[in-house]
Structures are given as C-alpha cells and as structure tokens.
C-alpha cells in the first residue's frame, strides 16, 4: 500500500501542475476575449444598427438582435444620395495615393538606405522634417498652391498633396537597411542595372514593410476628410466622407441608413487587411506571436 502511494504521489502532483496553468490559461483567454469584444462593441453596434428599423437607434435599451432585419437600409441609403459616385471617387483617390506611396517611398527609401551621395544626410533630415508639416498645418498655402495650378475641383487636386508621406519613406528605408549590401554589390558585378536590382532584389525582400505601407496609405487617404472638404465643392467629385456627413445633415435621412454607408465604407479597409494580414504581421515583427 505504502509503496503504491509513494509511487503515485509524484505523478499526481505533476498532473496538478500541468492542469493549473491550463486553468489559468483558460481564464486568461476568457478575459482577453472579453477585452477584444469590448473593443469591438462599437463596430458590432454599427453593423447591427445598419439592419435596424429607423427609430430603434434611440431606444432606451439597445436591441442587439433586430426583430426584423431591414436589409433594405442599404439600397435605400444608396438611392438617396449618389453614394456609388462618392465611393468611386474615394476609390480613385485612395488607390492612386496608395500606388504613389508604394512607388515613391520605395524609391526614396532605397536611395536613402543604400546610397551615399553628397548631402544624403541632409536629405534624410529634410524628409524627416516634413513630419511636422501635415496637411492640417499647411492647409491654407496648400490650397493656394493647388488653386494656382487650377486644380480646384479635380482628381489631381485631391490626390496631389497626399501622394508621398515621410513616414512611408522611413518605413521603407528601415526595412531596406536590413538587407545585406553584399547582395546589391554581387548583382552589380553580375551586370544588373540599378532598377533591376531594386525590382528583383530589394522589393521581394521588403514585402512585409510594403504591405504595412500599402494598408496605412490606403486607410489614410480613404479616411481623408479635411482636404477634400477644402478642395472640392462640386457633387460629382465628392469623396464618400463628404457625402456621408452631408447625408447626416440633411433632414429626414434615417440614422440607420447612415450606419449602412459606414459599414460599406469599413469593408474595403478590412478586406485589404484580410488579404495582407500575414504579411502585415511580419512587417510589424509579430511573427513570433502564438
């Protein structure tokens, strides 16, 4: 009997220590999920409300599961204002800005990371210093410049000041810095041209950083409100944020339909994130996370 007990004892304690962390992990996961849901509540609320009946939005108690799903909120909202045109405008602007950032930030980032030319240190400083000059600060003179170009109420007027962002240049520079210079030298000895080196050696190695750049530059131009508000005054060129705010200000438009447009506006960014997620995680250095 006694021998049996002593033989079993270590095994029992081991299984206890093995189960305790599992329990703790379970509780921890529960808490984490609760936290994530707390952060997601506004997004869930927006989605639920976009299917609700007009008056239900100001109920004293939020009805989380609609008694009747009003899918017609979506076509109704779209028919009340030219949202299709607004979304197309936003799409044109955002994709152009995204491509502009991806192309020019990669070029400049490569130039700053792997080349030493006279004044390269100064150029670095000059580009960094534009961080203190966001559009909110230079709004008035930027408007006057675009006015001089006669680009008020044009696509190029909306796109131009957003085309390159210093953060993107630095993101790409830091990413390219970690690529060994030997690769570049070897390619040069093999007779590869500078553009070919950039496209075939540099770009494939900084895809994670490029994904981060793509998603953030798309989001920031998709989000842009102040600049289109300043530079656009005709309906045909309005981007969706301007249209959505105007839609809310016009009397009689149900708030639930406003939420429907907000849901539609959220989808492209989430979709882009879904496509690039793995790469974005690596771009942020999160590949070690369980």
């Amino acid at each position, binding site marked *: 009997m006694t021998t049996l007990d002593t033989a079993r004892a270590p095994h029992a304690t081991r299984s206890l220590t093995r189960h305790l962390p599992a329990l703790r992990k379970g509780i921890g*996961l529960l808490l*984490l*999920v609760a*936290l*994530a849901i707390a*952060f*997601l509540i*506004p*997004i869930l609320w*927006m989605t639920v409300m976009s299917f609700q009946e007009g008056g239900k*939005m*100001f109920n*004293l108690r*939020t009805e989380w599961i609609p008694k009747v799903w009003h899918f017609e909120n979506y076509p109704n909202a779209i028919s009340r204002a030219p949202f299709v045109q607004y979304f197309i405008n936003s799409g044109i602007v955002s994709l152009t800005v995204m491509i502009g950032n991806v192309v*020019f*930030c990669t*070029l*400049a980032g490569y130039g*700053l990371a792997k*080349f030493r*030319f006279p004044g390269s240190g100064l150029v670095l400083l*000059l*580009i*960094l210093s*534009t961080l*203190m*000059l*966001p559009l*909110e*600060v*230079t*709004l*008035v*003179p*930027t408007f*006057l*410049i675009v006015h001089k170009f006669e680009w008020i109420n044009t696509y190029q007027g909306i796109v131009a*000041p957003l*085309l*390159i962002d*210093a*953060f993107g*240049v*630095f*993101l790409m520079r*830091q990413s390219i810095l970690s690529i060994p210079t030997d690769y570049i030298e070897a390619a040069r000895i093999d007779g590869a041209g500078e553009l070919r080196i950039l496209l075939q050696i540099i770009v494939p190695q900084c895809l994670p950083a490029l994904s*981060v750049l793509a998603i953030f530059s798309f989001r920031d131009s998709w989000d842009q409100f102040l600049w289109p508000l300043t530079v656009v005054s005709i309906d045909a060129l309005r981007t969706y944020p301007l249209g*959505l*705010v105007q839609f*809310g200000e016009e009397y009689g438009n149900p*708030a639930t339909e406003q939420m429907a447009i*907000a*849901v539609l506006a*959220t989808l492209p960014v*989430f979709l882009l994130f879904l496509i690039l*997620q793995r790469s974005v995680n690596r771009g*942020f250095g*999160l590949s070690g*996370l*369980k």
Partner: protein
Amino acid sequence: MSELTTATTYQLSAPPPVARKFWQLHHRQRIRLWGFAFVLPTLLFFAVFKYGPMMWAIDLSFNSYDMVSAPQFVGLGNYRALFGDPIFRETLVNTFVYIAGSTLLTTVIGLMLALAINTGIPGARHCMTAMFLTNLMPIIAVCLVWRFLLHPYGLVNQMLQPLGVSRIDWLTSSSTAMPAIIMVTVWRFAPYFMVIFLAALLALPEDYYEAAELDGAGAIRRFFHITLPLLMPTIFFVVVVSALLCARIFLMPYLITGGGPGNATRVLSMLIYETGFSYLKMGQAAAISVVLFTIMMVFTALQIRLFSRSEQVYM
C-alpha cells in the same frame, strides 16, 4: 638610354591603374547619381507641397489676405490679434490638454494591452487582430458611431447604468466633452500602439527573464525591473508618435462635438480651417498654422533624434 627605356616602360605600364581608378570613380559616381535620382521625386514633391507651403504660410502670417484683394503687410498684427483673442487662447489650451490626455492614456493602455496579449495564452493573436480593427475602421465611421454611443440615451450611458452612474450628457457638457473625445481617441489609437509595444516585447531577450525567475522574482518585480527599463525607448517613441498624431487631430472634435459645447473641444486645426475658409482670413489662419507648426516642431525634433538611434520605424 636603358634608364630612359625603363622609365618609359614604367610610364607606359602606369596608365592602366590610373585609368581603372578613373573608371572606378566614374562608376561610383554613377551609382551615387542613381541614389540621388531615387530620392529626387520625393524631394521635389516635398518642395512643392511641404516646404513651399510652409514658407508661404510664414510669409502670409505677416499679411492680411482674403483671396480677393492683394495681400497687405500687417507686421505682427495677426499674432497680436491671435494672442489677444480668448477663443484662440482657449483653443491652444484645449490642444495641449487633448495631446497630454490622449498621449498618456493611449501609451499606458496600449502597453497594458500588449502585456495582456504577450502572456502566451493560445488564441491571443486573434484577440490582437480583433482589437486592431478599431484602428482600421474609417475615422468618419468612428466619429459617427461614437456620436450616437455618447448620446444621453446612448450605449455608453446604458452600460454605465448598472454600475450606478446616472445619465451623463457626454457631448453637451463642457466638463465631459473633452474627456469623451479623449476616450474615443484611446479606443482608436491604443490598439495601434499595442502592436508596436507587442513587437518590442517579442524582441526582448528571454534569458533575462529565465535568470530572474531562477532568482525568484515575481511577475510584478520582473515587469518593473526588466520589462519596463528595456521598453523605455519604445515608450518614448510611442509618446512622441502619439503626440504628433494628436497635435493634428481634426475630424474627431469637428464631427463629434463641432468644437463645442462653447469652445470646449475646439482645437488648433479646426481653428485654422474655420479662420481660413469660413471667415476667409487667410493671413490669420496662416499665423495659427505657424503656432501649430512650432508645437509640432518640438515633437519632430524628438522624433528625429529617435529615428537616428532606433532600428524600427512604424507608420
């Protein structure tokens, strides 16, 4: 004679290295030129859309200009008018309160979220992705949704009711409007800084923790004696980035409170837009731009010092 020939042969054999050296220099120069060519489009772009406008703003801030008649030099008149204006002074204070409050809270909560995710709990990655969605939702949708959530009968008050909190008029009372805007900012930005902190946490060397655990240091002591000191550069980075983001905030107060009640949530970027485009006082608006620019310059100077040291850069 023989000496001469040796001299000439020497001279004859000399050119190749010189020539190669020249060719090499040429080659190097060509590569440098490529480097400059890669940066040139960005530099030209910034000259037209960043440095140009900024210099124009400084010039304009000494003038009175309404886009109709020619600019008129008024010296320091715009600045004198600004600092004599109680609305401008209130806006300036609001901007500082907003930057300080949002930066402090986003940094602390962002770090806490990152620590929670980094506990090694399986599935934590998905929770992180879910939280990060708040950072990807279009800011316009964020503003519209939160305006409803913060309504007197909105979801926030509904959820506070069981805790015994009586109804708060978040957006229409001057004491709660700014905290409400800061709350939305934290909801929006904390998950983003969580990701930055998480990347830094994952890069921390594990052996420190193993050694500390062997020495019997508890979780709290490990955090204050290992994690926090090692994380200091990242914390500093987050504070500066957050301050830069918050200094230029426009849409949240513009859409959620419209700068009100009174001027309780009016910030500098809103004042620039209103002064320039509602009242067409371009000179005065430029003067406010110069003030905001000065504030951002301080943070940018810190940022540049950080960039020159740290390895990682995020948007």
